Each structure stands twice: as structure tokens, then as C-alpha cells.
């Protein structure tokens, strides 16, 4: 299995860490808030789509500052345009995005692409990230070397805005996702040549480091609850991790260790 941890190191002081801390692994809530129905998106059948997931507007404050994982699959945020109908305004998600954010008109609602079927059983976590547009490229070819072309295209796109000399530097500065899975290595490879889809790269935040290949990590300090964990490229619920101090003993988990000792007393009654 491919283990991939992204941990926030924070600052050298607590105050400094708090001021730069990132909100990670927020579980979206589904409680329906008041929402104007004037803005909506059509589902694949042409009906107004129900988007049941909401985010905290104090965390996600605009476009291009969120990273969503739906059932462990990382989604790409796109921009949007609108088409005005008689009584409603309809979103159209652009840039090959899976979802879009419109703080002004849709408040804390996540507007998903028409093709995404959602149920109440779906699990959606969202992270806040620094504001930056993703770099996106499509992969339509399955020829040998086609994945290398994808990586190269992304490198060129990134380099045009953020001078980046090679894939090694790109790997230091960016996260790479392909069809919702996180790609750990940016090295040229033929493993993904026969797959088509969408690849995108987003900028890494400051004060994070990434560790690959081991199930358990220890040594350097990190801030609890500010860890992302990808298992085979799919984001895992951090409830599957213990984030603690190296000095503790690992013992069997799941056993309630609260107990009460009861002094048993016997009363004798004379019949």
C-alpha cells in the first residue's frame, strides 16, 4: 500500500502556529439552511439538482481556497458561469471542475457537477487551502508516454506563472491529483499511460511536509488534527490515525478503559 502523509509543522511558537494554521478535515454538514432557490444547477435529467452538503463559511471564504474529498476521492474545483432563466439562474461549472463555490449567491452550499450523484451516505471532508487556482490538464491519449506528456504540460503551465525548473521542483511545491487520486511521485512513468482523465496540481501550503511509504511516522513535531492521510491516493478519514507522542505504549484499541470497581457486599436476612 502507498502511505502518504501531509502534516502541518506550524510555527516555532504557539501564537505563531495559531495565526497560520490551516483548517483541515472538516466534515461537511448536511443540515438544510435557508437558501434562495434562485440559483441552482440542473442535474443530468434537467431538474434542479439537490446539493445537500454545506461548508462553514468562516473556513471556506471564497473560490479556490478549498479542497474536497468525496468518499475519499479528491475533487477539482472549477469556476462557473450562469444562465438566466425566467425565474432562476442556472450554474454551469467550468474548467472541468467537479464542484464550484459561489459564496455570494449560494452561501455555504457546495454546488456539484450535474453528473455527480450524491446520497446522504456520502462522506465529504473539506480542507482550507491557500488561495490559488489549480493547474489543469486533460489526458485523452493512451499511447505510450502520454502520462509523461501530462506531467510535462503541467510543468509548463506552472512554470509560466511560478518559475519551476523541473518535475522534482514541481513535486516539492505542488500536489498532483489524477482522476481524484493523489499521485505521490511526479517522476515520468508509463503506469498511467492507458488511463484517460483529468489531472490537476495545486500549490502546497507553507509549513507542511510530506512523508511517503511508511504506515507510521514519528520524529518531527506536527500539529494535531492538521494531518492529511492518503492511502493508495485516496484520502482516509483521520479517525484511522492516532496522533500522539512517541513515548506512549501502543496497546489494543477499541477497548473501553474506564471501569468502576464495585465492593460486593452480602446482606443476610433472617427468615
Amino acid at each position, binding site marked *: 500500500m502507498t502511505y502518504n502523509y501531509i502534516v502541518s509543522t506550524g510555527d516555532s511558537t504557539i501564537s505563531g502556529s495559531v495565526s497560520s494554521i490551516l483548517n483541515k478535515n472538516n466534515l461537511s454538514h448536511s443540515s438544510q439552511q435557508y437558501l434562495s432557490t434562485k440559483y441552482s444547477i440542473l442535474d443530468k435529467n434537467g431538474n434542479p439538482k439537490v446539493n445537500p452538503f454545506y461548508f462553514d463559511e468562516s473556513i471556506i471564504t471564497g473560490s479556490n481556497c478549498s479542497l474536497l474529498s468525496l468518499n475519499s476521492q479528491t475533487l477539482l474545483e472549477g469556476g462557473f458561469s450562469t444562465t438566466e432563466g425566467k425565474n432562476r439562474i442556472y450554474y454551469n461549472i467550468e474548467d472541468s471542475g467537479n464542484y464550484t463555490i459561489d459564496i455570494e449567491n449560494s452561501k455555504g452550499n457546495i454546488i456539484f457537477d450535474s453528473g455527480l450523484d450524491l446520497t446522504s451516505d456520502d462522506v465529504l471532508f473539506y480542507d482550507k487551502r491557500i488561495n490559488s487556482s489549480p493547474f489543469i490538464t486533460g489526458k485523452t491519449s493512451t499511447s505510450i508516454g502520454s502520462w509523461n506528456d501530462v506531467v510535462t504540460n503541467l510543468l509548463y503551465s506552472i512554470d509560466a506563472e511560478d518559475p519551476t525548473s523541473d518535475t522534482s521542483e514541481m513535486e516539492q511545491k505542488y500536489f498532483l491529483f489524477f482522476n481524484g487520486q493523489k499521485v505521490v511521485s511526479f517522476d515520468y512513468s508509463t503506469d498511467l499511460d492507458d488511463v484517460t482523465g483529468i489531472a490537476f496540481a495545486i500549490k502546497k501550503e507553507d509549513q507542511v511536509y510530506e512523508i511517503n511509504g511508511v504506515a*507510521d511516522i514519528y520524529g518531527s513535531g506536527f*500539529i*494535531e488534527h492538521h494531518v492529511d492521510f492518503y492511502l493508495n491516493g485516496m484520502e482516509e478519514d483521520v479517525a484511522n490515525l*492516532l496522533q500522539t*507522542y512517541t*513515548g506512549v505504549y501502543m496497546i489494543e484499541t477499541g477497548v473501553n478503559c474506564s471501569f468502576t470497581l464495585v465492593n460486593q457486599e452480602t446482606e443476610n436476612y433472617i427468615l
Partner: protein
Amino acid sequence: MSAQGLLFKIQENLGSNQRLSAFYDFTYSSSEDNVEGAGSSFTGIQKNSAISNDSSLHTGFLLNIVSSSESGITGQIPTALQNDKLDLTYTNFQVPLDGLNANNLATLIDFEFKDGDIDDGIILGCLKTGEETIQSFDIENSEGFNIGVTDRGHLFCQTFGPNGDSIDVMYSVELSKRNLIAVSTAESFITLSSFDYFNNLVRSLEIPVDQNYISSNSVLNFGGSDSYFRSNNNTDKTFSGSLNNLAIFSGYMEEEFLKDLGEGILGDYSYTAETETIEQRITGYSETIVYRTGITGYDYVPTGTLEIITAREEFTGSITSASDETKVEGERYYKYYTLNNGDIQTFYKEELGKLHSDSGYVYYPTGEDAYDTLGLNDVSESISAYTETTGIIQGTISIDLFGKTPLTGVLSEVSGVTQTPLEESYSIYTLASSGVSISVDSEDFKKNFIYYIGDRS
């Protein structure tokens, strides 16, 4: 700095330090301040901080630093208090309650583990259990409670009640190397809290208790307990770590409130004095009438003089003495006479032939004829000689010449009004500010171990 930070937070939230019974930052000052005893009994101590309500109370004892002589312990105290923390693997610590009750107080405990494996142990231990015989019945009793940490690194609270011993483990909280926790006790419950200042979280466990089993007026032990499964002696060291700071408050306190006070313990207090900036502002205008200016007259100033000749030309001259000359008899020379004619002064001269003054003769006629007719002696005599200066003089008068210069000045005609702003100084004050920044090194408060508990196959 933690004392100042805590005091600031207390003043901010409580208005006074009345409820701060004790505070220890475990700073070693001197052996005199950290030793108590007399005769053949000396103990290491940690005095209560001056920021507490009554620093004469709650002097803490370093339980394992005792000796029959003062010199026997003075060397141990700096070791126990190295790096401004009390090493609980070196000595346990005991605080007399001095009027407080264990079932009605709050403590903030800033502790850290030593590097290496964490073993279970007591952080705060004041539990005492025993038996007493009342009316021939043996009755179990207790006082106090224990707060400790398990091998797994979880906080626990051990109490004794009507149903016997109970241990409640705070398994939802993973501890870091360094932690700030709070224990707040009331008559019917104990609240055990852990503070996560990174995520601004308070996680608490409320443990119901029976006050009749918790009440205690004696001491709080840190590092050991009189009733623990591994030891029944409060001098036995059970905790593998150290205390960085310890604060004890009278009465129960809410955990959120304690978290705020804890920021003071971990933080640095800062104060910026009021500043005054002086600015100017216009309060009005003074008006001044301005009159036109122009030529008010003329001034005639001398520009030179003009000489005008008023009489005919006249010769003038003068003589001045020159070097005497020697003349022999018969040699010609001039005899000079001056002539003063009013303003005109001149001279005239007569040419004579020299006769020596001792000759006693006067010769007539003079000149060539005399030479011819007289025999002259070859004697000489000095005569006075003169240098002649001659010239022409005319009568003149001098006339002054004048030029015309205009004089400028203020006329009586008004040309306008000048407004001059009137200003006054005023002060802008930036209010004094103070606060606490949690600038303590954060590394030990972070986690450093991720353990994956999912399926690894």
C-alpha cells in the same frame, strides 16, 4: 515571564489575585530561598510566588530532598530545578492546602514527559484511603483523588466513593510531550481538562464524586500519592516527567476560564505605554487689512560735484630745502625769496656770484663783469639750495549735483484683506495596551507520532 502573564490574565478576568492561592514557576534562585529547616531536619522548598494572594502560605516541599544538615541538600536543589522546571523523577512535590479544600479548588498543571517511554504515574495525588471502626462497624473512608497518566499516554482520575475505587480515563485526549491540564473540583464532580492551544480546543472529562469521600484539608502531592496501586507512600516517585508551572486557585473554575488563564502561564506579558502625539489644528482666522503701496514722494540724493572756474590763471610755486651745495668764489648760484600774495604763494630768485663770507667785500656789479674785473680766491663755501615747484592756479567753486529717487510706501487705498489661520496644539493619545502572546516554544506541545490503526494488509 509566565508569572506576569498569569497575573495579567487574572487581573483581566477576575479583577484581583484573590483567588490565586499559589503559583510556582520552579525557578531556582538561591539555596537560601530553597531550604527550610532547623537543627537536624532540612527540606528543599519552593516558595509560593509573589503574585499569589498570600505568598506566605502554600510553601511547597521537595519531598525527596531532605537531610539532617543544610549542606546536605543545597547541592540537590539546583539539580531538581534545572531549566526552570521541577524534575519529578528526582523529587516529588507537596503543597500544603493551608485552609483550602481539595473538593473546592482548581489547579493548572503545566507538565512534560521526559524523553523515552511513558510509564503510568501520578501527576497530582492527594488520595488517601483507609478504614475506621464506628460503633463496631469497619467503614472504609477516603479523602482526595489522584490525577495521573496511563502507559498509553492518557490522563486518568482515580477516586474512591460509596462503591469503592473508580478510575476514569480520558481516552479521547492524546497527550503531547508537554501539556497544560486543569483539575477543577466541586462538591459533586471533578472536571479534568486538557487544553489544545493550537486548535483552540478544550477537552474535558467530568467525573461525578461524593464530596464526603473527596474532601481533604491536608496536602496536594505531585509525582506520587499515598494511595496508588504502585505505591502507598507519597515520596515514591511515580511520574516520569517534570513540572514547568503550577497554579492553584481557590474554588471551582470552568474549564474555558482555566484555559484562558493557562495562556498567561505559557505566554509572555507585554505592555506598550500610552503615547502622545501633538498635532496643530486651526481654530479660526485673524484678518489684516492690506493697503495698496505706491510712490509717496521723491528723495534727492547727491550724485556728485561740479567744479566751476571763477578766476584767471595765476602762477604759483614753492620751494623746499634741498641738500646744501658748495660753491667757489665767483661761481654762480641762486638766492631764493618767497612771495605771499594772499592765497597765491610763489617765489622768485636772484642769480649771484659767490664771494666767500670772510672776504668782507661786496662786489658790484655782479656777473660776468665781476669775474673779469676782480681776482677771485679759490675758496668755497656751502650755500643753501632749494628745490623749485611751480604751477598754475585758478580760482574755482564746487557745486553739488543731485539725482531724483522715488520714495515708495503704503497708500491709504485698501487693496484687500489677509487671513491668518490661528492654531492651537492638541494631543492625540494612543492608549496603553497590554496582553499576552503565547510565545513559548511550541515544539513540545506538538505531536510527533502518527500511528495508523487501519488494516495494513
